[in-house]
């Protein structure tokens, strides 16, 4: 390659134009001259060789070590502990679901209070003479489960689960005994299925009804 000052070949062609042609794979600006000019041909050959290497480098397989992922995530987890979430939590979970936290050592297990309400509702099905009061009182989670958990309210505190229950009972039964059996059954089911401690089952007998024939 013989390049004069000013970046021109002896034939007057600009080196830059040939570099552009090779690098961008363009058609020659002046094909007739190029085909017959030995300066241009020589330079093009050299440039093709050089750019062949550039293309080879572009194709070279590069593998990023996996430890990059680990190092990044470690750095971010450490950083995240020191700084709040980028967006307030309420925006992430618009309907704040209340829950019981069971275990945190190797990842958390949380049980939504709606699940506990459902367990109580299903326990009530074991008692044909008892049914939860229809309708919803304030704070009852009827919007999640329609009528199925109406009459049942759950709250979870550090002490354990508290169940508030409103029921209708069949006429003729001894209410206090029945409620005591019901209370024990509910406590037993919640422990069996979730491992949670139930500290109170408060029952309001709202009504009595005629036996179903």
């Amino acid at each position, binding site marked *: 390659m013989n390049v004069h000052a000013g970046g021109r070949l002896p034939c007057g062609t600009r080196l830059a134009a040939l570099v552009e042609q090779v690098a961008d794979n363009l058609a020659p600006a002046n094909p007739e001259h190029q085909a017959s000019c030995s300066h241009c041909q020589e330079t093009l050959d050299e440039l093709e060789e050089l750019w062949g290497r550039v293309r080879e480098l*572009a194709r070279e397989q*590069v593998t*990023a070590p996996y430890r990059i992922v680990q190092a990044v995530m470690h750095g971010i987890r450490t950083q995240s502990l020191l700084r709040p979430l*980028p967006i307030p939590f309420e925006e*992430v979970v618009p309907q704040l679901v209340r829950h019981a936290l069971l275990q945190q050592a190797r990842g958390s297990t949380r049980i939504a209070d709606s699940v506990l309400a459902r367990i109580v509702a299903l326990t009530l099905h074991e008692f044909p003479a008892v049914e939860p009061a229809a309708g919803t009182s304030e704070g009852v989670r009827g919007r999640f489960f329609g009528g199925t958990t109406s009459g049942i309210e759950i709250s979870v505190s550090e002490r354990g689960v508290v169940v508030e229950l409103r029921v209708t009972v069949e006429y003729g039964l001894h209410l206090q005994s029945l409620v005591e059996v019901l209370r024990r059954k509910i406590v037993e089911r919640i422990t069996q299925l979730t491992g949670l401690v139930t500290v109170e089952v408060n029952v309001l007998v709202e009504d009595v009804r005629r036996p179903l024939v």
Partner: protein
Amino acid sequence: MVLKTDDVHLVRAAQLGDLYAFEELVRRHRTRVYRVALRMLANPADAEDAAQDAFVQCWSALPGFRAESSFSTWLVRIVTNRCLNMQRSRRSEPLEERHEAGAGRVSEVVEAHLELRALTEALMRLAPEQRAPLVLRELEGLSYEEIAHVLEVSVPAVKGRIHRARLELVAAMRQWR
């Protein structure tokens, strides 16, 4: 299926603080980010550092990411700037030291390919500001528009820089033969 999720959804989840979504993004884009850093710095250890820093910075800046470019181009922008900063601070080191350290490291990168080594060394002889657009164009295949976005300059400015950088590279490689 995490693997089939679009970047867009993963980015949205990560913006809300989902670390698992972000981890998947890091996994997907780590090779590209590392490769850009490797071409800019010609040193695997430095490239790894730059890639890590870039992802951590990306996480911090994520809430402000407005998807004006693809997530991938945005990452390239972060890592390119990171490399340019690293090299700016390194320029203050004594010349001799820099040269020795550089030469030793370059040989590790492409030991097997002498010719590619020559190219890498020629690239390293360019000023980082010239090397960046060349790496992005010739090695990463970015469009002029994308490079303009990465380097925060106009498209004509990018074309000019690449044009000059190519001539510099040709001169550097010829000198080396």
